């Protein structure tokens, strides 16, 4: 299946043929051969003007020459951005066209997910038919470890697990070590609430991760790898298990792979689902069979990691990029994305969004495009309020930043972070104070308890926020909240504690007025904080149908049939059932 079709139109056959050849060369150069098909057609209108139309978008370009075609291939076909100054009809053909049926897939750029949903993940043959294990073959037969490291370094790939550390650099540290024993580990712990990118990759294309780990093993000189998966992902574990067995059977894992003298094998380790075990030092400790607690860095794992040996730990999605970087080259990879963030990013879209699911877009795509052009927008005609990225370690992105190109540095710049790729969309019914409280509750639960600022500090933060959502907060509490946030960030040992206050800080930054409404007006503008809302029946509208009374689980509603009903505030547990049941819209939330 081609992702895009390019139609070169004109009236002179020889010129057209030439252009099509040039276009095909460009498509080849940017490794889009399997994604883009170039066709030529004689102009129907009879004029001599040469134009180029990209389908399915139907974008038409004029001024076609070698240079402009290269821009169209690079910007539009590879990065999904329309080249505005070449548009034939600049006024109408912008990105704001009407959505059509296949847009969900077509507006994406599927590189990491290219096999997910296309091949049978339990068949190694199908993976091989899609160029699987070619990259491993290439590095083992044609490249030195140093060349592999150099290629990954040149690609600009950065870790997809949250931190965004340059992958090539990490490999280089480990590669340079003279230690005879080294390890490769894969972080498939995926603990962020709302994130499921890594699970989908493991379930849909497990061989890509296995192949990449073998490549990494060769690059740094490791013969053994561990995949740390959470036990809550039974299907991912099953498919990985099967894939590892198949790879062994084919001799793609094991001794003397591709007759190169290189040995590599993998083992799966199951995590019990503690969030802190996603932190690299805790994860490695957990693989060793010890209690999953972080320890100070340095020494970094690349110097002293698993069992005290140099270790490279990468995220599932980071690994899934590797085979294509090797096959298509660093130059190709680095042509996708923004200056400092290369390639694509997979997001797990969730919350108040029409198309809940998995999307992959080039770095630098705007949040607006992800939410409205791919995610289908906010359901029920509600308004967008904020998007939360980075889970409990991240922050929120308010409407004024919808057009910022998503990459590592931009997100940090506006007080959020890329995180591992969970993207939770919130609308006007979501209370931002309540959201911060939700994530704090999570981190309080998940703190390993080793350092006091994190263990006690986050609990105090949670209590302060609860005070505010209960309507007991004071303006001094806001200052205390902020001060405590910075204290926790500065004094915690690991990333969990250091980033736990982020949801509070970012909501304070962008939605301070909501905090103030809770404190001064004792109201929750979104109507989400139970302590601050009341359900009431408007007497003029109530016809006494008894529906609400029958439905109320707390027996808080009184009233005879055909007479006006009333809610007893003391008995009401604020479940909202009555409001949903009432056909007269006589019940309101205040």
């Amino acid at each position, binding site marked *: 299946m081609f992702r895009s079709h390019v139609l070169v139109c004109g009236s002179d056959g020889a010129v057209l043929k030439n252009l099509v050849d040039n276009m095909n060369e460009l498509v080849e150069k940017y490794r889009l051969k399997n994604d883009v098909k170039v066709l030529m057609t004689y102009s129907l209108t009879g004029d001599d003007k040469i134009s180029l139309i990209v389908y399915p978008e139907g974008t038409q370009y004029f001024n076609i020459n070698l240079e402009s075609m290269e821009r169209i291939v690079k910007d539009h076909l590879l990065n999904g951005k329309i080249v505005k100054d070449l548009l034939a009809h600049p006024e109408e053909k912008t990105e704001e066209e009407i959505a059509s049926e296949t847009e969900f897939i077509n507006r994406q750029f599927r590189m990491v997910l290219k096999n997910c949903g296309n091949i049978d993940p339990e068949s190694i043959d199908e993976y091989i038919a899609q160029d699987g294990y070619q990259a491993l073959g290439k590095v083992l037969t044609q490249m030195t470890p140093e060349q592999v490291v150099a290629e990954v370094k040149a690609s600009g790939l950065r870790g997809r697990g949250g931190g965004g550390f340059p992958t090539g650099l990490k490999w280089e540290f480990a590669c340079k070590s003279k230690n005879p024993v080294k390890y490769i580990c894969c972080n498939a712990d995926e603990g962020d609430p709302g994130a499921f990118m890594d699970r989908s990759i493991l379930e849909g294309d497990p061989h890509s991760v296995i192949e990449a780990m073998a490549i990494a093993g060769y690059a740094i000189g490791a013969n053994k790898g561990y995949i740390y998966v959470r036990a809550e992902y039974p299907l991912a574990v099953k498919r990985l298990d099967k894939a590892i067995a198949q790879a062994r059977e084919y001799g793609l894992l094991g001794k003397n792979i*591709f007759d190169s003298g290189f040995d590599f094998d993998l083992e799966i380790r199951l995590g019990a689902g503690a969030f802190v075990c996603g932190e690299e030092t805790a994860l490695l400790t957990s693989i060793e069979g010890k209690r999953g607690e972080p320890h100070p860095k340095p020494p970094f794992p690349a110097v002293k990691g698993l069992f005290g040996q140099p270790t490279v730990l990468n995220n599932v999605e980071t690994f899934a990029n590797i085979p294509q970087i090797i096959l298509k080259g660093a130059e190709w990879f680095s042509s996708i994305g923004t200056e400092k963030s290369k390639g694509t990013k997979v997001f797990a879209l969730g919350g108040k969004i029409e198309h809940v699911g998995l999307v992959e877009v080039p770095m630098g795509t705007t949040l607006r495009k992800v939410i409205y052009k791919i995610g289908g927008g906010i359901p029920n005609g509600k308004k967008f309020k904020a998007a939360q990225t980075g889970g409990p370690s991240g922050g929120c992105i308010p409407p004024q930043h919808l057009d910022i190109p998503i990459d590592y540095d931009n997100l940090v710049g506006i007080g959020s972070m890329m995180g591992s790729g969970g993207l939770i969309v919130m609308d006007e019914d979501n209370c931002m104070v309540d959201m911060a409280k939700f994530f704090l509750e999570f981190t309080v639960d998940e703190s390993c308890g080793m350092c006091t600022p994190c263990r006690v500090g986050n609990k105090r933060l949670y209590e302060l926020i609860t005070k505010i959502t209960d309507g007991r907060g004071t303006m001094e509490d806001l200052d205390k909240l902020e001060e405590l946030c910075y204290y926790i960030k500065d004094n915690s040992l690991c990333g969990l504690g250091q980033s736990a206050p982020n949801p509070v800080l970012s909501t304070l930054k962008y939605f301070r007025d909501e905090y103030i409404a809770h404190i001064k007006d004792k109201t929750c503008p979104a109507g989400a904080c139970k302590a601050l809302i009341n359900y009431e029946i408007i007497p003029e509208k109530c016809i006494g149908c008894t529906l609400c009374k029958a439905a109320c689980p707390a027996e808080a509603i009184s009233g005879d049939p055909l007479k006006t009903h009333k809610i007893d505030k003391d008995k009401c547990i604020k479940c909202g059932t009555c409001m949903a049941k009432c056909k007269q819209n006589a019940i309101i939330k205040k």
Partner: protein
Amino acid sequence: MKSLAELNAIKEKVLKEKTEAATKSGEIKVLVGMATCGIMAGAMPVMTALMQEVEKRQLKNVAVSQTGCIGLCNYEPIVEVLMPDMPKVTYIKVTPEKAVKIINDHIVNGKVIKEYTVDNIHWNKE
């Protein structure tokens, strides 16, 4: 695995089988999304229904197979039909009953069931 040539031999073999199947009997591929999201939404009974119907009707040129998540998790179970020389058709929220109808109407009689396809997903304006 001893060499790239050996790997390529497997690749060519699989690709050849695929194209041969496609040209010989007009092989039709039916893909069912079987990641956690699909299975939770009920992809197993859909898969079973598809296979039983194919078996019942003795459709030798139809291959039903599983695949990963295509990304539209809240429209699972998703079934995709790939016929030679035809654009891929994606069916959403498939039930065992719909699955039987897909085999009958689309695969046997060549009629795409428009009401079930991904064209029906909802888009909200900004």
